């Protein structure tokens, strides 16, 4: 294929570096410096998509982020598939593979298009709601069909081979956009010594200065751009970010910049380079110099390929050396539209006509066109376009002065390209992100940034200032203002001389009338990407949608990946006309981050795979791994779940581990329990206030179990606290509750009782804990210590500072299994040493490592609760049958006391924790099962409670369960039923939750 639309000279492309790319399976040539869109236009590719709803052929209409049609799928392999790439923003590289995302069997011959053509009125706004929502059960089927037919790209099915990155940045001045205003602001701020970041979404800085033929200081504008960029790059404190879209403007001048580092180089990033990087910037001041998007006009069949916005035509000619057609008709409401015709004529191709909707406009550009002898048709409009896959001609007719009616006769002109300009819409997206409401300007004919609480300045096109001289001046002013605000002296900058241009007033016109009423005229598209027409918006208004937000949702205007950058203002204008309101009365929708679609990879950065969430390991983790332990996540901790041996089922492992503890000795890694060191002369008083039980008399060397309740009286954590010294305690918490408990203690101390002298520090990671439990645990401990660990000297609920395996250790004689137990706490870096010594010495006792699952079974056999499993924020200590752990003698009204004495907490028939023994001892009731009194009773059955813990107990030879039953503590021996999903019913008897060793003799041996 030849590049038939490529000019032989001019543009910012490198003709000495030809590149090959693929579109829909065919190979084409382009040049370095091309975008995918410019290369496609150079090759005469007209149809790049089929439209969403009507499947109409669509071509490239714009040249930047606002492009609604040329949204392609990229990727040479399955793993490198990227959806939603705007061809206008993708730089061409050698070997680029692209494809259109919709159209079946292809965009050129599309089956769905037939439906669109046959049934122009078959798909009104709200079509999907009206047609496919019923029956609801079929929505999933409809949705997949619609999606397939519509086609909006697809995610890769394989893992992305590239890496993504993020970086935090700080600066004095963040400048968004590197056109004339942005560059002037950056130059000023940089010269003044500010720390500056300037970002632009394009591959090179310059913005509009690169798209035209304008001169600065009598030389091509690009030379001024080059000099400024050169100077900026010399400053150490200036960061230049091309190919970087400022995608979000968040609170307190926090901005997110999406930098595409290597997207322009290849399908996969070169070795050791990241594909994209997210900059997270905190800026003292922000200068928005985001420019403006040109609005196309809304006229009949304005979506036929060959219909473009006027500025884009100029850009393709001047920047890329591509003329996207042969015979041009321009339609414009303003002077800027003339530029496309001038550039087209300069490129040596035929300008058929300039159709100006204004009656008599005289500006420098209009005069230039007149002097060139171009055919100017004033007070008229292109009311309709002919053609399907490419424009073949236009119908031109006179307009009434207000632009609301066609007057006079229709003239048909032959043309293949229609360039329209309905004026410019300032790019106010970022300004909207922070909650600022845009303000309509009649003179600009567009929305301007509204009042803001951010430290934000604006300059240039975003203010509706489209003349280079003014944009430069505003950029300079913003730079100086930012310097002053950050406390720096004004900078000395001389702005370049510009060619002053006289500009005639634009006409406020958006929707070109047709001979027929809008509803009967050929389709006049407002939003190309979502196929919203002027008629559709009128219908929405007629059906009663008056708020612009509702019109938007009903018609889907602005819902595409382009967020309606091109069509929204036109849509509001059409709605305003239909509602007989002005545009400011109709209002505008606002924009949310992100400005353009962004890859998930760039959002997640390095925080994926193994780095997705931190994992916490105990000092003995490696040993567990070597022993083949399976792990359970508890918070961020990896805890051994059970230690299967070859050939064992999980239940067999649990049975073996449980019996080992009951018959000899087992070992558990309990390092993950939260540990909080508490010191100060009021530490004891403080404990009494946060625990439900008494702490005043706990002697040094003793441990005590405590329940922690909220102010509502409900249990939320529990654990053992040891008295290390008169003013020194160490509290243990549940593994998952540690952080919460710690903050709980701090908030009460800092905000309620600052007069108490007490200090907290988290020491969870400082200690490793090996729990040895079982009848032989004392013998095992004795092998590794010289200390006296006999029952006379080391009593139940004592703790001792002794040496174990040569290491100083705090040993707590407490028990969560009901067996004689010792929790051996050593400095974490000795943890593995002590563990291995215990394993070594324990061999002769058959010392068996066990995990959290066996721990759960052993404690459930004893009826010990697990906070968070047997509590759910709705049970107080009495509900748990743990009234023994509540002291009402304490003088201070501890946290939870008032709460658990509320009338609802003291009423009859509360759900209470009981044991449940199944009639069939082999049956294990699934956790969560609901209890009823009569499974055959009238439905709905009244739920009496639920199962919170349930296991097979190998020790006892039957299943055990703990659960809640209304008034359960008074219903011992009664029968309840648990209906299962499969229709069967499990029968169980209410009993004490202490199934094993009810007198607690085993822990006292």
């Amino acid at each position: 294929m030849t590049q038939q639309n490529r000019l032989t000279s001019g543009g910012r492309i490198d003709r000495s570096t030809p590149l090959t790319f693929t579109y829909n399976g065919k190979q084409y040539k382009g040049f370095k410096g091309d975008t995918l869109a410019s290369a496609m236009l150079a090759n005469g590719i007209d149809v790049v998509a089929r439209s969403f709803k009507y499947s109409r052929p669509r071509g490239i209409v714009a040249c930047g982020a606002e492009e609604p049609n040329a949204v392609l799928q990229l990727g040479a392999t399955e793993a490198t598939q990227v959806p939603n790439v705007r061809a206008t923003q993708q730089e061409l590289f050698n070997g680029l593979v692209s494809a259109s995302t919709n159209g079946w069997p292809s965009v050129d011959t599309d089956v769905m298009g037939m439906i669109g053509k046959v049934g122009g009125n078959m798909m009104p706004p709200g079509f999907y709601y009206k047609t496919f929502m019923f029956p609801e059960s079929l929505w999933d089927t409809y949705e997949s069909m619609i999606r397939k037919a519509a086609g909006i790209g697809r995610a890769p099915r394989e893992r992305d081979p590239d890496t993504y990155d993020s970086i935090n940045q700080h600066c004095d001045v963040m400048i968004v956009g590197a056109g004339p205003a942005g560059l002037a602001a950056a130059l000023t701020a940089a010269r003044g010594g500010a720390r500056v970041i300037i970002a632009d979404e394009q591959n090179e800085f310059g913005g509009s200065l690169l798209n035209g033929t304008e001169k600065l200081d009598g030389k091509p504008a690009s030379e001024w751009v080059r000099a400024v960029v050169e100077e900026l790059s010399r400053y150490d404190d200036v960061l230049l970010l091309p190919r970087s879209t400022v995608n979000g403007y968040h609170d307190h001048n926090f901005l997110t910049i999406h930098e595409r580092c290597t997207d322009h180089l290849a399908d996969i990033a070169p070795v050791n380079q990241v594909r994209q990087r997210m900059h997270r910037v905190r800026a003292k001041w922000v200068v928005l110099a985001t420019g403006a998007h040109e609005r196309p006009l809304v006229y009949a069949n304005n979506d036929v390929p060959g219909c473009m916005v006027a500025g884009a035509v100029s850009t393709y000619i001047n920047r890329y050396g591509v003329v996207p057609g042969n015979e041009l008709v321009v339609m414009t409401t303003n002077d800027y539209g003339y530029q496309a015709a001038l550039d087209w004529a300069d490129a040596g191709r035929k300008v058929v006509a300039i159709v100006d909707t204004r009656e008599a406009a005289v500006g420098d550009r209009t005069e230039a066109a007149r002097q060139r002898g171009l055919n100017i048709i004033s007070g008229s409009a292109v009311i309709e376009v002919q053609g399907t896959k490419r424009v073949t001609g236009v119908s031109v007719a006179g307009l009434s002065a207000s632009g609301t009616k066609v007057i006079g006769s229709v003239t048909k002109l032959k043309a293949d390209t229609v360039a329209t300009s309905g004026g410019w819409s300032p790019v106010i997206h970022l300004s909207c992100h922070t909650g600022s409401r845009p303000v309509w300007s009649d003179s600009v004919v567009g929305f301007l940034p509204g009042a803001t609480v951010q430290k934000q300045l604006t300059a240039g096109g975003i203010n509706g200032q489209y003349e280079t001289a003014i944009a430069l001046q505003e950029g300079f002013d913003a730079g100086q203002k930012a310097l002053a605000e950050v406390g720096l002296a004004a900078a000395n900058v001389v702005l370049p001389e510009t060619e002053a241009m006289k500009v005639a007033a634009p006409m406020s016109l958006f929707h070109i009338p047709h001979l027929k009423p809008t509803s009967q005229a050929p389709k006049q598209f407002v939003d190309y990407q979502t196929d919203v027409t002027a008629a559709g918006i009128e219908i929405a208004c007629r059906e009663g949608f008056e708020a612009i937000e509702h019109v938007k949702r009903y018609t889907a205007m602005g819902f595409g990946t382009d967020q309606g950058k091109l069509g929204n203002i036109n849509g509001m204008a059409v709605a305003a006309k239909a509602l007989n309101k002005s545009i400011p009365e109709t209002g505008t929708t606002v924009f949310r981050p992100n400005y353009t679609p962004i890859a998930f990879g760039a959002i997640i950065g390095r925080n994926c795979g193994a780095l997705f969430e931190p994992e916490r390991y105990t000092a003995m983790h490696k040993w567990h791994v070597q022993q083949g332990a399976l792990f359970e996540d508890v918070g961020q901790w990896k805890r051994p779940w059970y230690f299967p041996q070859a050939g064992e089922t999980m239940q067999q492992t649990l049975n073996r581990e449980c019996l080992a503890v009951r018959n000899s000795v087992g070992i558990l890694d309990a390092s993950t329990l939260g540990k909080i060191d508490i010191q100060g002369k009021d530490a004891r008083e403080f404990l009494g206030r946060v625990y439900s039980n008494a702490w005043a008399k706990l002697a040094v060397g003793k441990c005590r179990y405590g329940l922690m309740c909220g102010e509502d009286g409900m249990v939320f954590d529990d654990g053992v606290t040891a008295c290390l010294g008169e003013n020194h305690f160490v509290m243990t918490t549940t593994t998952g509750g540690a952080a919460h408990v710690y903050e709980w203690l701090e908030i009460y101390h800092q905000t309620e009782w600052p007069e108490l002298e007490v200090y907290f520090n988290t020491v969870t990671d400082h200690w490793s804990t090996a729990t040895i439990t079982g009848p032989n645990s004392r013998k095992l401990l004795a092998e590794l210590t010289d200390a006296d660990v006999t029952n006379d000297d080391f009593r139940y609920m004592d703790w001792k500072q002794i040496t174990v395996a040569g290491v100083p250790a705090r040993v707590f004689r407490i028990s969560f299994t009901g067996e004689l137990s010792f929790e051996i706490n050593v400095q974490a870096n000795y943890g593995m040493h002590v563990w291995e010594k215990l394993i070594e010495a324990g061999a002769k006792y058959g010392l068996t490592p066990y995990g959290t699952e066996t721990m759960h079974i052993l404690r459930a056999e004893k009826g010990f609760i697990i906070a968070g499993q047997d509590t759910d924020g709705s049970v107080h200590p009495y509900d748990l049958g743990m009234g023994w752990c509540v002291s009402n003698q304490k003088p201070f009204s501890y946290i939870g006391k008032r709460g658990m004495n509320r009338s609802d907490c003291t009423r009859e028939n509360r759900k209470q924790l009981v044991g449940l023994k199944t009639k069939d001892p082999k049956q294990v009731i699934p956790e969560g099962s609901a209890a009823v009194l009569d499974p055959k009773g009238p439905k709905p059955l009244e739920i009496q409670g639920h199962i919170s813990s349930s296991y097979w107990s190998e020790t006892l030879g039957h299943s055990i369960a703990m659960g809640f039953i209304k008034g359960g503590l008074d219903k011992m021996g009664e029968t309840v039923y648990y209906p299962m999903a499969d229709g069967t019913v499990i029968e169980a008897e209410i009993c004490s939750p202490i199934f094993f060793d009810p007198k607690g003799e085993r822990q006292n041996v």
Partner: protein
Amino acid sequence: MLHIYCPHCAEYREEDEFHCAGQAHISRPLDPEACSDEEWGEYLFFRKNPRGLHHELWVHAAGCRKFFNMTRDTQSYEIKEVYKIGEQPSVVAE
């Protein structure tokens, strides 16, 4: 993402380091036993949800671990002031 001045550290830090702990100036009744169920319920559960100025309790969780108060505009997200526990706000809603 908010940019928060910690009055204890005396510097601006990112919101990542902080944790909001709800409405500020909720004092625990000095004599809870003297509260009716209704009064206790008020203390426990009822919180303001204003559009505009709001006084909040924050903690510099990944920093100095100290609590402090913040007066924040819930609409614009402007932080009007931060002040230590025990102090009263100087910026209040009209």
